[in-house]
């Protein structure tokens, strides 16, 4: 295995009594695409939020290029985050800004480039994601797939070392889903960055992954290349990748996406009145 871009070491995260990640350790190789899979509610999104410091682990260390992000001050964390670009589930584009301003946002904040240079980069990034000339459209005028592609263009704006994808295929039809997978592969070849992808999409996972990490019941139960995962005799892996809803995966365990509000509100039963 090559040099690590990211290392999780004995990381534990719980919200109240609910343990989300239970002393997990794993590595993400630099320059490769690592896909994190697992049933809903197994802590995949928490994994990403811990990595970028949006959440703090209860225990353990998370290294990004050898630097433990769990022990950084807010200012140092902002510096480390410049290494990341992140594509959120729905793109997380700013509604009040047009596509051009959304992509230009990190460039205006963190570089001293002129407006002309910034707009040139914006056009280039839009071209790379297959949406040239839509700078003046508002996010509300875009389809789900287009929003994700614009989100990817924004994530790539500063040419980050590590690009994170939070369920890039969610809510997309199979054709658009495949288009996004192919875009990820193309972007990977263009940038050479480290890609970390959270996914449920099994065909897409095998298409884009160099390495797979499987989370189940708060633990890493398998890591390996696509071939190693496919060849595994672990019944949970076999069931997950064959999309079989029969046992052994405990359907009562993974009942839906985790609600991440507790880290903001300090409340642990956010859905109690919903």
């Amino acid at each position, binding site marked *: 295995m090559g040099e690590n871009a990211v290392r999780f070491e004995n990381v534990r995260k719980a919200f109240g009594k609910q343990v989300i990640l239970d002393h997990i350790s794993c590595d993400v190789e630099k320059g490769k695409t690592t896909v994190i899979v697992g049933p809903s509610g197994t802590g995949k999104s928490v994994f990403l939020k811990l990595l970028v*410091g*949006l959440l703090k682990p209860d225990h353990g260390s998370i290294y990004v290029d050898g630097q433990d992000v769990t022990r950084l001050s807010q200012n140092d964390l902002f510096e480390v985050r410049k290494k990341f*670009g992140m594509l959120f589930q729905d793109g997380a584009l700013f509604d009040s800004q047009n596509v051009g301003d959304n992509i230009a946002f990190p460039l205006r904040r963190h570089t001293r480039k002129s407006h002309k240079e910034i707009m040139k980069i914006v056009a280039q990034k839009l071209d790379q994601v297959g949406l040239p000339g839509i700078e003046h459209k508002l996010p509300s005028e875009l389809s789900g797939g287009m929003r994700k592609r614009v989100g990817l263009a924004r994530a790539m704006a500063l040419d980050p070392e590590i690009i994170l994808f939070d369920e890039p295929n969610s809510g997309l039809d199979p054709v658009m889903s495949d288009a996004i997978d192919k875009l990820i592969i193309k972007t990977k070849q263009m940038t050479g960055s480290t890609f970390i992808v959270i996914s449920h999409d099994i065909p897409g996972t095998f298409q884009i992954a160099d390495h797979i990490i499987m989370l189940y019941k708060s633990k890493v139960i398998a890591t390996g290349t696509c071939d190693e995962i496919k060849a595994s005799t672990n019944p949970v892996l076999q069931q997950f990748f064959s999309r079989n809803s029969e046992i052994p995966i405990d359907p009562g365990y993974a009942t839906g996406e985790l609600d991440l509000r507790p880290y*903001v*509100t300090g409340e642990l039963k956010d859905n109690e009145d*919903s």
Partner: protein
Amino acid sequence: MNQVIKFMSGLGQLGFFSVRIFTTLFRSWPEPRLVFEQMFKIGVETLPVLIAVCTFVGTNIALVGYHIFKGFGGQEFLGAYVGLSCLREMAPILTGALMAAKPGTDISATIATMRVKEQIDALEVMSVDPFKFLIVPRMIAFILTAPILVLFADFVSVAAGFAVAVFQLHQNAGHFINQMLAYVRMEDLINGMFKGLLFAIVSCILSTYFGYTSKPGPKGVSRAINLSVVTIASFIVIFNFFLTAAIYG
């Protein structure tokens, strides 16, 4: 007991939230463009409603005051009564309440929607401090705009009271103004502006807090707006009593 713990924990969080706003404000000044945008928005949103509301509050104070004072022959004090009521109490309270109702709800809704749609997380991942980018410009805009809005409210409510006194109740215009100037001091004007400033700071803290800590989904957003208006309105009325007691004894 659980509710008490929840309430105390909420208060603690609100305290930390407020401290973070002011430490961010004193550590790094946001882009002036962001502040001016917010000031313009607050002015445009609040001023028309404030003028309309203050006009009718001023007229009402003059009418009610006239009939009360007339009972014991004290109509000559109408100018002083209108001036003191508007400058000391009504103008700052109405400014605070309308800032909570218009820009306050707008802030809660905007920030709550950004929270729910992961846009605040996106800001953080792009190494942009959401407090510096979203909250501090709004706080500065509230601080700078509130005293000016109080002045508008003072002028409009007193002018409306004057108009009713002179044109409807046929009081002597010169006497109304002289009485007002005899009893209203500069401190009343400044204290009113100070009260409006405090109400604006509280409105901004609470509306950003409820937006920032919004729960997921449309219900979370509507709850944030609701909590913001109800809490700020209640707070202003209660806080105003203590401020008035502290200032005027």
